[in-house]
Every structure is written in C-alpha cells, then in structure tokens.
C-alpha cells in the first residue's frame, strides 16, 4: 500500500480483511466525525461513544458501500443516523442543566460566557438545523453533500443553515448578511 492511500484503496483493503487499513480510516476521519457528534449530541462522552458506534456500523456494513461512493459521506450518514436519537435525549438533559447554568457566578470571563452562550444557542437549535449547521458552517461540507448525509432536500438544508447561522450571529452580536 502507498504511503498515503486514498479512502477507496483503504476501503478495498479493509473489505479484504485488513484491520490496519480500517484503522487508518478511523485515524483519518475520527476528528471530523467526533467533532460533528459533539456539536449534535452536546455531550462529549456520549458523542465519542456514538462516534465509535458509527465506525463499528461502518465496518460491519463495509461490503454494502458502492465502489463509486464517497466513504466520508457514507460514514457521516451513518453517524447522523446514530446521533439522531441521542440528539433528542440531549435536548431533555439541557433543560435540567439550564437551571444550574442560571445559578452560576456572573463574574466569569466574557469570552467563556460567550462560548457558553453560543454552545447553548447551538444546543437549542432543532436537531436537523443543528446538524446542518455543524456540517456546513463548522465542517465545511457543501449544502449538496450535507443534504445527502442528512437525507433532506437541498432547499431544506440551505434554510436550516441560514436560520442556524442567523441565530448564532445574533448571540455573537454580529449583524448577519
């Protein structure tokens, strides 16, 4: 195998039984998948657990991946399906955490307060919107690829991204547009 094989080459090797090839795929995509899961799920530990589940599901279903399909897009679609249920329960947990947040000392670093406010705003977005924002604004995915991953119409993704971005910019106190 070459020094920097393509995803397609690694997938082919993994299909033949190479654990080393699949481990390289994990290495290559773990940051993106985990970051996406953290933004969608809101809880770091749960997000990492779900990310492992996504890689495990991808390994199990590797034979179903079409040869002309993009591995990273397919992996993210699996990750999104794993994250959906977790995202709903995370919303319920946030209602409990909000009471604690309200009692915190107000003399914190303004930048920390801003980050917390941004995180809360992101967490309060509907899960579909949060996922679209996480992919397109944070992950630099195109709207088309995000629509494929989230299994939504392209127009819906664009709308979600615009609304999510507007909400976050509002928190930042920056005019959007």
């Amino acid at each position, binding site marked *: 195998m070459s020094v920097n094989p393509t995803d397609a080459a690694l997938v082919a090797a993994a299909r033949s*039984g190479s*654990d080393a090839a*699949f*481990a390289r795929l*994990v*290495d290559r995509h*773990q*940051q993106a998948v*985990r*970051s996406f899961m*953290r*933004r969608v799920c809101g809880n770091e530990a749960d997000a*990492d657990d779900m*990310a*492992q589940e996504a*890689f*495990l599901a991808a*390994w*199990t279903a590797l034979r179903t991946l079409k040869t002309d399909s993009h591995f990273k897009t397919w992996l993210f679609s699996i990750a999104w399906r794993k994250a959906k249920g977790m995202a709903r329960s995370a919303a319920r947990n946030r209602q409990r955490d909000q009471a604690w947040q309200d009692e915190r000392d107000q003399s914190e670093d303004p930048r920390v307060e801003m*980050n917390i406010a*941004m*995180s809360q705003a992101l967490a309060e977005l509907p899960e579909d919107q949060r996922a679209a924002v996480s992919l397109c*604004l*944070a992950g630099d995915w195109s709207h088309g690829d995000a629509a494929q991953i989230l299994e939504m119409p392209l127009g819906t993704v664009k709308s979600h991204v615009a609304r999510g*971005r507007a909400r*976050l*910019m509002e928190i*930042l106190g*920056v*005019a*959007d547009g």
Partner: protein
Amino acid sequence: MAEQDPLKAFFDAGEAPAVDPAFKARTMDRIAQRRLRVELALRFVAGGLLVLGFMALAPTIALIGQGIFTPELTPAFLAVGLSLAIAWTGHYLINHSIQVPRLRFF
C-alpha cells in the same frame, strides 16, 4: 467574510483532537469483539448443522459401510490409508507445515 471569523473560531474551539490513538484503539477493540462474537455464533451454527447432518445420514452411512467394509476390500482400504499418511508426512517434512482449511467470514 469577516463576520464568519468569530463563528469559525467558536467551531474550531470545539473540535476533537486531530490525533487520538486511544480513540482508535477503543474503536478497533470494539470491532475485534464484534468479529469474535459473530464468528463464534457462525461456528456454533455450523457445528450444529454438521451434527444434525451426521445424525440424519447415520443410517445410510451404516448401510454403505456394511456393503463396503468387507474382508475382501480391507487390504485395499489399508493401502489407500497408508498412502495418504505417507503423502501427508512427506508434505510436512518438505514444507514444515500442515495446512488445514481456514474458516474465514470477514
């Protein structure tokens, strides 16, 4: 665009680490556990099917055996068996290995 910078900075701050050997190790460990469970289950099923197969075929095999293993044919079977044993021994001495079929599901 300039207004994208604070947003991008917020997202960049929440990124997972670029390199995390511990995460990779935990993931590959879970894969190994899944593979082991599946292979054990498949071998259990295969073994059960073999047992059922032999049980179904036992009366037929016994009938055939009674017809084949007559005193007149015993020297022939001994010769064939001895030849196979010599051939296998010779293969081992030359190659220093005895290859058996490997069950591979993944």
